[in-house]
């Protein structure tokens, strides 16, 4: 179990980004973390994987545990060694290097099993095998996302943190990626899925957390979230049955976005 307890993160010593959030990712499940821009989803991931330093951020309160081991403020390399791998937002592959080199870098902490892990990744993403010698910057967006996920899998993680894997992909590819996430999960990898595409995320996850301005405002099993009226309206783009489709023109501007705390 990966557990975040009462986490508070401050950027540049003044900007309070996470205001004490807690969530849990039970082993073997897919948990999704939803929310609009700037709600702190990515910051939560960075806090877990120890990547706050590069952004001048600090954990000011709270703890992060993986299997009861405290990993708050641990070095990124140690966290990867403990079996937590993050797929960064925007893929962030090393575009000057080849596909194989990218994968080898993903296996940096697990150098002995590179061959075996690479077979596994090629099994999941056969297209990467065809492109193995290509410079990764020339891959298509979907292939790059697969490479980014494959690279994270190279460290043989128990927990895979995905930051917006659907970003910038065509609907068909989003579907393909979501199927792959389910498949990875079925191989025994616990997944935390950070998404803006709530529809896709809630469909494959068992539990969902909704974030808003640094707080978790809602936390329910995914089916329950999908039934929730506010979630339907503001995240899934559905209207209550029988009602007319709303035009934003008729809605007061402060009501266009759900404000959970008001």
């Amino acid at each position, binding site marked *: 179990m990966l557990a975040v307890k009462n986490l508070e993160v401050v950027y540049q010593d003044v900007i309070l980004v996470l205001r004490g959030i807690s969530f849990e990712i039970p082993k073997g499940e897919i948990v999704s973390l939803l929310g609009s821009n700037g709600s702190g989803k990515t910051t939560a991931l960075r806090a877990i*994987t*120890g*990547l706050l330093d*590069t952004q*001048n951020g600090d954990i000011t309160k709270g703890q992060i545990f993986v299997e009861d081991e405290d990993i708050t403020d641990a*070095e*990124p*390399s140690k*966290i*990867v*060694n403990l079996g937590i*791998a*993050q797929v*960064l937002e925007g893929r*962030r*592959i*090393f*575009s*000057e*290097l080849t596909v194989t*080199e990218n994968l*080898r*870098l*993903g296996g*940096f*902490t697990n*150098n002995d099993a590179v061959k075996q892990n690479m077979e596994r990744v090629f099994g999941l993403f056969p297209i990467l095998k065809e492109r193995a010698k290509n410079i990764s910057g020339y891959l298509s967006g979907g292939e790059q996302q697969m490479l980014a996920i494959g*690279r994270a899998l190279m*460290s043989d993680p128990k927990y895979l943190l995905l930051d917006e894997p659907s970003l910038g992909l065509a609907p068909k590819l989003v579907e393909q990626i979501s199927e792959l996430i389910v498949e990875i999960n079925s191989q025994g990898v616990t997944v935390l899925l950070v998404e803006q595409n709530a529809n896709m995320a809630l469909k494959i996850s068992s539990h969902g957390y909704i974030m808003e301005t640094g707080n978790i405002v809602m936390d329910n099993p995914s089916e329950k979230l999908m039934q929730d009226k506010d979630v339907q309206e503001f995240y899934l783009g559905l209207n209550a049955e029988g009602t007319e489709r709303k035009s934003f023109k008729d809605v007061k501007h402060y009501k266009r976005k759900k404000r959970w705390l008001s």
Partner: protein
Amino acid sequence: MITFLQATFEGLSLGAVYSLVAIGFVLIYKATDVLSFAQPALVVVGAGLISALAVDRGVPFWIAFIVGILLTGIIGLVMERTFLRPMVGEPVFSVAILTIGIDILLRTVLNNWIGLNPRYLGDPFQSFGNFGSVNVGGVTLKYLEIAALFTGVIIIILLSVFFKRSKYGVAMMATSYDQEAALAQGINVGRIFGLVWLISGVLAGFAGFFITGGFNTLTQASFLSALRVLPAVAIGGLDSIPGAVIGSLIIGLTQGYVAYYQLMLEGVIGFSLGSGFSLIAPYLIMFFILIFKPDGLFGTKEVERV
């Protein structure tokens, strides 16, 4: 023709030596975003260490050679740990000024030790006779220059294999492209920084021996030869390793040709260019190349300028 071959050979061997330092410079810039102006000082420090061990202390030459070069690498490592690690994330310009400070520090200490008389490094090739050189079809090849050329080529091959094949080499490339993504793969970026400085220091140590070894001797002015690496790096583009090698060869060849053809050139243009012209020529070349290609021959556009 023989003059031409002679000049070409000497130029290439000089270029190979410069390229060692230039590669170190580019490595540091690419991986850590630091423009290390202390690299030329490290070159003379390496020479000084070898000389101190081999001549003053009487350590056998090859041991002194290896220990001196390794020590230079370690000085590079210590520099990074003490002065530059706290500066991570600061503007490139401030860090560059800091390295100039380190450069002055190293040189002051070293110049004080060198004193007024030239120091020797214990050239192992002197004992081969004929002033440590061999004559091939009229071209005089100094053993030191042959060794410099070979060492340069071998080190460049080793480094390119290292970057393509080894775990840390690829990690180093990754760090230079995207530090954060490298961190996310579990790469210990701090250790990579240290490794980069160590390698650059070792390369500077090698260059130090070839620049000041044999009859060249180590004097307070040796630093000026090492400084010619800067135009080489500027010509190649600050962030390209092939660029660094080619820039160094251009500088080396320029120096070689000017040394041999200056009299002829002066005869054509009708006035004297002065005795130190071969020292200035590299900077002139840099000047002209940068007018047409401000980012250097192989540099990427968005490289920050200082």
